[in-house]
């Protein structure tokens, strides 16, 4: 190999960049978060059910809440009718956070894990007082 010193330095840099994610975790993955449903309001529910079905809420809640915001604040219509035909009052603080009163144990769990920093809390505050 010609110019082996320079080539080896280059390959080491390449290997370092490529292997960074493999070395960073030291072979132990972070535990997948389980957002906690352990709040008095949820415990008191006869049937543990969100506004829409769980899988939809897990994957699409952000778009869903964005539509809620537009409907409530831009169209002035605060009633949402879900897929089952049930009417729900549109409000992050009074509807969502009524059951999910544990922002730290619920919202933040997955958001921190996936590195998501939603701007909900630029305007809203958590009425249950957990530090944001």
């Amino acid at each position, binding site marked *: 190999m010609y110019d082996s010193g320079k*080539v080896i330095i280059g390959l080491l840099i390449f290997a370092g960049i490529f292997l960074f994610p*493999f070395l*960073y975790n030291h*072979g*132990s*993955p972070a535990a997948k978060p389980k957002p906690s449903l352990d709040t008095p309001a949820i415990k008191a529910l006869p049937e543990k059910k969100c506004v829409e079905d769980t899988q939809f809420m897990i*994957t699409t809640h*952000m*778009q869903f809440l964005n539509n809620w915001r537009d409907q409530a604040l831009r169209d002035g219509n605060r009633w949402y009718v879900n897929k089952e035909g049930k009417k729900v009052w549109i409000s992050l603080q009074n509807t969502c956070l009524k059951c999910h009163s544990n922002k730290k144990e619920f919202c933040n769990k997955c958001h921190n894990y996936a590195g998501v920093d939603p701007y909900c809390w630029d305007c809203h505050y958590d009425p249950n007082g957990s530090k944001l």
Partner: protein
Amino acid sequence: MAARILFPLAVVLAIVAVALIGGSISFLQPLFSVALLYVAFAIFFFGFMAKVINWAKSPVPFRIPTTAGQEFSLPWIKWAKIDNPSTTGGVLMRMFFEVCLFRSLFRNMRTDLRSGWLIHSPTKWLWLLALGFHYSFLIIAIRHLRLFVHPIPGFVETLDAVDGMFQIGIPPIYLTDITILLCVTGLLIRRLCLPKVRFISLAADYFPLFLILGIVISGLLMRFVFRVDITAVKALANGIVSFHPVVPKGIGAIFFVHLALVCTLIAYFPFSKLMHMGGVFMSPTRNLANTTRMAYHENPWRKPPKFHSYEEYEDMYREYMKEAGLPLERE
């Protein structure tokens, strides 16, 4: 000519179809995620190394830098230090401009026949699209680290925030999503629409373009239309780089399409023109100082020649020469 375009397109569509089916069948999901990623990573890593080492084994017997400016000569002739470097510092500058700013594409010229005259004029489209594409791809690749490592390094979070700073839509659209889509489309249009470029374009030129376009489109669809559980995706990616692979339930088929296209790209990487990532550093037309006449360059495979002097010749044939009565220097 059409087969050069349609064949790679068909291959990409076939990959999409296979991944769509494989990703929808739960017992095939480990094959289409964990196995595929490990194989692709291994091919990429070792293939890349092997290719570079193979290149490094080829001797460069003399200096062949492209001389894109006045070479170092007399003190009153202005020397183009970066375009025609004769020092290590100049070469480093030249490599920096080449690797980071694509200087040779910036010099791209178009040639037209205008009212009987052959006119050369500068054209910057290729440079602009290439620069936009490469930096978008780099930023997107770094952003994806948030799904592979935990805790997420600060620079990844910062980059994520800067890239999504306009907060358009939920989830916010990234600037690089828009620029990569525009630039790859532009580069594809360039190949398809410029007759001269189209003439020299091969299937190997279209294939990476279609693949990358497929990756971008599937990624955007996954983010904005067919949502998947991102924590499940992270558990998968994080598990793979930690060598504790798991395949969580409930990841949509679109994710497997995205992953299959990415794996194809990185596995194809070492065997394709994409190796210019390593090759740009290895190209003797860029990384050699123009010291052709300033320094002595010895041919690297040169062996000392075998001389056969007259004395040796005479020693060899002395007997016969004597017999034939030829004159000898030594008896």
